[in-house]
């Protein structure tokens, strides 16, 4: 437990958790809230999650990264109401080798986006509200996304 938070993400605190005298290379990624989406001005975002599965899936992703590369990884995703510029997700990967730190960091953020059940509702400047990715185009994209996720999982678990 501990991949989800409702508090602001503290990057130096996350770095401190993985840094060590033998892991000299530290790659990190922050995803922050943008002020536009599909051409509309976003006022704030509301993130929600399937909490227990977020924890389980994040633990699997971190374990995968740490078994494939010589890295220590921390990952945190914030939910609740976020303002423009707030950090929604942070990944930090520390390794003796910077190549592995970069590759692992990238792997973790890509898998988080692909596999972790978190949703966001955009509140626009005009007061209207919309689930991100839930429009007609989103449903079509979803179908492809579903096949990719389950195909990969079928391999990983069979």
């Amino acid at each position, binding site marked *: 437990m501990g991949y989800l938070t409702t508090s602001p993400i503290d990057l130096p605190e996350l770095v401190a958790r993985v840094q060590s005298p033998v892991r000299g290379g530290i790659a990190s990624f922050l*995803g922050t809230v943008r002020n536009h989406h599909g051409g509309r001005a976003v006022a704030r975002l509301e*993130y*929600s*999650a*399937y909490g*227990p*599965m*977020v924890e*389980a*899936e994040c633990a699997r992703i971190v374990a995968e990264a740490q078994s494939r590369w010589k890295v220590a990884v921390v990952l945190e*995703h914030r939910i609740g109401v976020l303002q423009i510029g707030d950090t*929604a*997700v942070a990944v930090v990967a520390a390794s003796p080798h910077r190549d592995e730190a970069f590759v692992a960091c990238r792997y973790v*953020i890509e898998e*988080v*986006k*692909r*596999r*972790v*059940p*978190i*949703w*966001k*509702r955009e509140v626009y400047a005009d007061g209207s509200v919309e*689930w*991100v*990715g*839930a429009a007609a185009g*989103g*449903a079509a*994209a*979803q*179908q492809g*996304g*579903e*096949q990719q*996720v*389950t195909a990969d*999982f*079928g391999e990983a*678990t069979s």
Partner: protein
Amino acid sequence: MPASAAPPLTVRVLLFASYADTLGLDSVELSLEQPATVGHALERLRALPGGDRLPPKPLCALNLTHVRPDAPLSGGDELAVLPPLAGG
């Protein structure tokens, strides 16, 4: 018929985000004839009010793990139907 001789199984279905809005439900218990799969549970969901607006192959998770629609269900399973993911 041996298949229907087994008692029905009960699964808890969780709905999130836009799908919860669509069906007006966060969760529902379904009783299904055995043997049952994720796909059978989805068919039952589609019969609920608003259920016809679910996509043909929604992303599903069974007991906190992504699964395909042909995954078998057991009594007490937690099935989650997941709208397009938007984390990160």
